[in-house]
């Protein structure tokens, strides 16, 4: 597999939240399933619809590429979710540094590599990790904007609130994409470029979420080690939905994990439908397994959608991107 790192620099504020839920509630990262839907919608807007359908067909059978969720970079530092498995840390350290360890959510990649190689952590390691994490929280500012709607007749106003994230200079989001079919490298880059023009996330009608591709290059040094270390544990860097044949052994395979339920409305091309997709559970980023994981596309088409509303099936992306990548 050929793995590329892509960096996005946003042109203004972003709004990443669950549609239809609280508009104030925003996060700074984008999960892999959201990125997939955004890429597919971009294809169906800019290309013929059957092109999106062909690609989905490929993804159902054997994905030509898989990717991580989008994580934060700041001033040359790249952050990854802290692996949830901490069985290698001594009981003493856990007792003394429990609070600090709990507050660690994001690791700079060299720390991630250390965690990954599972040697015991010293107090100094932990405070180093904390210090670098402060650059994570310093990468962006959260803002709640009051928004006013004006009545056309009485000119009365009503106020609601909406959350935004502003990335600072030298900060933004990055992702890793691994190609099993090299023929898709240029295509992926092209779709990402188009997505940058339209924007990712919500509030796009105010220009939110538009970005420039800062770089798109094969991964080097640290990431290479992360993706190809010899370890018997796998950390998930995307959202993961187990494939049918993985479900039997799942409890046994997962060492430490969290679950998130995703729901929302269906968008098809430029049209957002007032039609709810089936909610679906995912294993989250940072979960750890004993063996390699695969995942699948999940069919979330609602049962009996009203005719003429939806002419195609709807999927959520649930392929696992793990570190290390399985051979």
């Amino acid at each position, binding site marked *: 597999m050929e793995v590329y790192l892509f960096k996005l620099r946003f*042109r*203004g*504020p972003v709004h990443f939240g669950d549609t239809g839920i609280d508009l104030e509630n925003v996060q700074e990262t984008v999960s892999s399933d959201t990125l997939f839907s955004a890429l597919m919608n971009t294809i*169906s*807007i*800019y*290309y*013929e*619809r059957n092109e999106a359908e062909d690609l989905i067909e490929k993804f159902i059978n054997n994905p030509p590429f898989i990717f991580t969720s989008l994580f934060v970079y700041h001033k040359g530092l790249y952050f990854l979710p802290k692996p949830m498995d901490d069985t290698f840390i001594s009981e003493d350290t856990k007792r003394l540094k429990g609070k600090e360890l709990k507050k660690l959510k994001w690791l700079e990649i060299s720390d991630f590599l250390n965690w990954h190689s599972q040697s015991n952590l010293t107090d100094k390691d932990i405070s180093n990790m904390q210090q670098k994490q402060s650059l994570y929280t310093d990468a962006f*500012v*959260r*803002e*709640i*904007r*009051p*928004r*006013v*709607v*004006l*009545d*056309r*007749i*009485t000119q*009365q*106003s*009503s106020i609601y*609130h909406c959350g935004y994230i*502003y990335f*600072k*200079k030298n900060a933004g989001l990055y992702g890793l994409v691994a190609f099993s079919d090299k023929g898709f490298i240029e295509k992926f880059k*092209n779709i990402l*470029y*188009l997505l940058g*023009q339209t*924007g990712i996330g919500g509030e*796009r*009608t*105010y*220009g939110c979420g*538009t970005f420039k591709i800062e770089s798109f290059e094969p991964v080097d040094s640290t990431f290479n080690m992360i993706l190809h270390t010899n370890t018997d544990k796998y950390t998930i860097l995307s959202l993961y939905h187990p494939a049918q044949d993985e479900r039997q052994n799942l409890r046994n395979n997962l060492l430490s994990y969290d679950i998130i339920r995703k729901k929302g409305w269906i968008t*098809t*091309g*430029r*049209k*957002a*439908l*007032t039609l709810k997709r089936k909610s679906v559970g995912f294993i989250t980023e940072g979960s750890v397994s004993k063996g390699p994981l695969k995942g699948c596309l999940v069919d979330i088409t609602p049962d009996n959608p*009203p005719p003429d*509303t939806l002419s195609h099936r709807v999927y959520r992306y649930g392929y696992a991107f793990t570190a290390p990548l399985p051979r």
Partner: protein
Amino acid sequence: MDKNILGKVQINGKIKCLTGLHIGASKENMEIGAIDSPVVRDPVTRQPYIPGSSLKGKMRSLLERALSVELGIAGTTKRRNIGTRNNEIWIHVCDSAEDALQCPICRIFGSTGHNGGKNFPARLAVRDAYLTGDSVEKLSDIDTGLQYTEWKFENAIDRVTSAANPRQLERVPRGAEFDFELIYNVEDLHTVEEDLKNLALAIDLITLDSLGGHGSRGYGKVDIVIECIKGIPVESLKSDTIIAVEIKSLKELSSLITTFRGKSSGA
């Protein structure tokens, strides 16, 4: 069948403040002891800006008022209360994507479906407008005790008790300039001309009205100068090498629209 995009029209220009501009921020975010009525600022640079939502909202409501009679949306027909029962806010919104496609307002500004109707996503995106480099430089030097802005005492008199209620209002000084950018998605050839003309009308209407708060007291008079209008056909968007037709004014629309002809096999 879903509609594909034919291209984009990108409109860039400047908004010049002819009077002080006050676009209010929420007071919850303000430090204690600060000014009574602060302006919105970019949380990273601390510079005041004009939110895309304010600009777009103003364009929509002015255009809606201007076209209400010919569209038959005066009064409360074809309007929806998006406020509460006690604080009613009536705006025009089409109930289905099919209606929105026929409606000059919803086609540009978008609509949310009702009674099972599809949403119609706005064709127009209005970005936040930030201070020009020049204005940032000029405003960094002003000595008002505030960053990039000035403040003014306003004496609001309570109409009932006649009690004076002096307060400080923060505003962006007269002369400040903002860069603005509008992106219009071209989805078909039948409506692009009408949409762009209405966009131009909405921009004109803002210059006759005002932006932000306290417009009745003379705040927020602006001049809007369009500097560049680019028509970018979809093929050029895809190839990463932007080949665009550029015009200087919306009066040269027809030459812009030809850019998208031939790109629409089915339309």
